């Protein structure tokens, strides 16, 4: 989705604030621990997508673990593990109640093990090749940020194959895909800057230049 989380390159967020803390209050620890430990059918990709689907004003207004807490509540509701108003009632408040748009599909099982997979097929691209990040606008989860779409870059590393977030987040299978580090010139992305930006892109995000 073209969501509020896709902020790479956006202007307007102001200066860096050197907040060194991981947690600022006990509820942040609980949000982290429950998100890590709750035994629900799902995976990292659907967790990230639940954060992305939060109402944009909630997303920006919440602290980091406020988003985790909101995503956890949304995921529990969507799995009918809690009633819609159960947290409100138990907490005695509907303040900070998370809202989210629906996902196009939820996972039907929680996978075992990590995300790396071994594929028999060959990679489509190789180091040194110029590629174009496709201008895709999937309605579901994706790890192709807006700021590289349509731009040309150079493959600088080949990585193993990984479970494909665009399907795995939605219960549409693992569909593992090769991943590549693709280097873009800042001047091509933003019209200025002398640096490069390297980003890991799944093979379906790329096309030959």
């Amino acid at each position: 989705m073209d969501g509020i989380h896709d902020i790479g390159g956006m202007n307007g967020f102001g200066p860096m604030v050197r907040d060194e803390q991981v947690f600022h209050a006990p509820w942040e620890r609980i949000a982290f621990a429950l998100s890590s430990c709750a035994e629900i059918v799902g995976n990292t990709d659907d967790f990230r997508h639940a954060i992305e689907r939060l109402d944009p004003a909630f997303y920006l207004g919440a602290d980091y673990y406020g988003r985790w807490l909101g995503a956890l509540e949304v995921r529990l509701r969507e799995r009918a593990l809690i009633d819609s108003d159960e947290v409100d009632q138990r907490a005695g408040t509907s303040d900070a109640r998370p809202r989210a748009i629906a996902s196009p599909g939820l996972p039907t099982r929680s996978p075992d093990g990590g995300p790396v997979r071994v594929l028999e097929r060959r990679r489509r691209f190789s180091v040194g090749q110029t590629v174009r990040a496709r201008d895709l606008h999937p309605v579901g989860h994706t790890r192709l940020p807006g700021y590289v779409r349509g731009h040309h870059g150079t493959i600088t590393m080949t990585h193993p194959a990984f479970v494909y977030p665009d399907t795995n987040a939605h219960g549409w299978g693992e569909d593992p895909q090769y991943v590549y580090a693709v280097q873009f010139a800042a001047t091509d992305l933003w019209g200025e800057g002398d640096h490069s930006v390297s980003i890991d892109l799944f093979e379906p995000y790329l096309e030959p230049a």
Partner: protein
Amino acid sequence: MNDHDHDHDHDHVDDPRALRADALEAILIERGLVDPAAIDQTLDYFQNHLGPMLGARVVAKAWADPGFKNRLLDDGLSAIGELGLGGPQVDHLVVVENTPGVHNVVVCTLCSCYPWGLLGLPPAWYKSLPYRSRVVREPRVVLAEMGCVLPDEIDVRVWDSSAEVRYFVLPERPGDTDGLGEDALAARVTRDQMIGVAR
């Protein structure tokens, strides 16, 4: 309100997020969807057993042992495995090396990906909207705001960890560390260097 207040901070009494977190915890425990012991173990593990000291050991060994450094740059996950390291959020590791002419800096623009197994959980600024939005667009300005002014002649390479590969910066060995052992070297390594917001 909860049993996990291991630290000295505290919830504001009427913070609705605290009330919701407590409610969710109670509900999940009642339904058997979370093991209270797992909550404590998880927090203990992440707060007390992970942290930048692990990454610093990797850097120190790379500084001290050219063979290890080569293996680390070639296959990060195997190399840190030699030190018994790996752990959460490190399914595949790429170590990028700073040189006199190159500076690397890591971000996750889409969420907050970070090599937990080497650095622990990230500080708030790493997950902040200004860092995520700006460091891919104007890294020199962001780093300068963080106290790290890079000379123009240094190439800046930003790594946006958008997939499950984790990036880790190998800083340059300081010039005044001849003869130091790995522990002494590790003491010189900062978390900010391994993210790339310090030189």
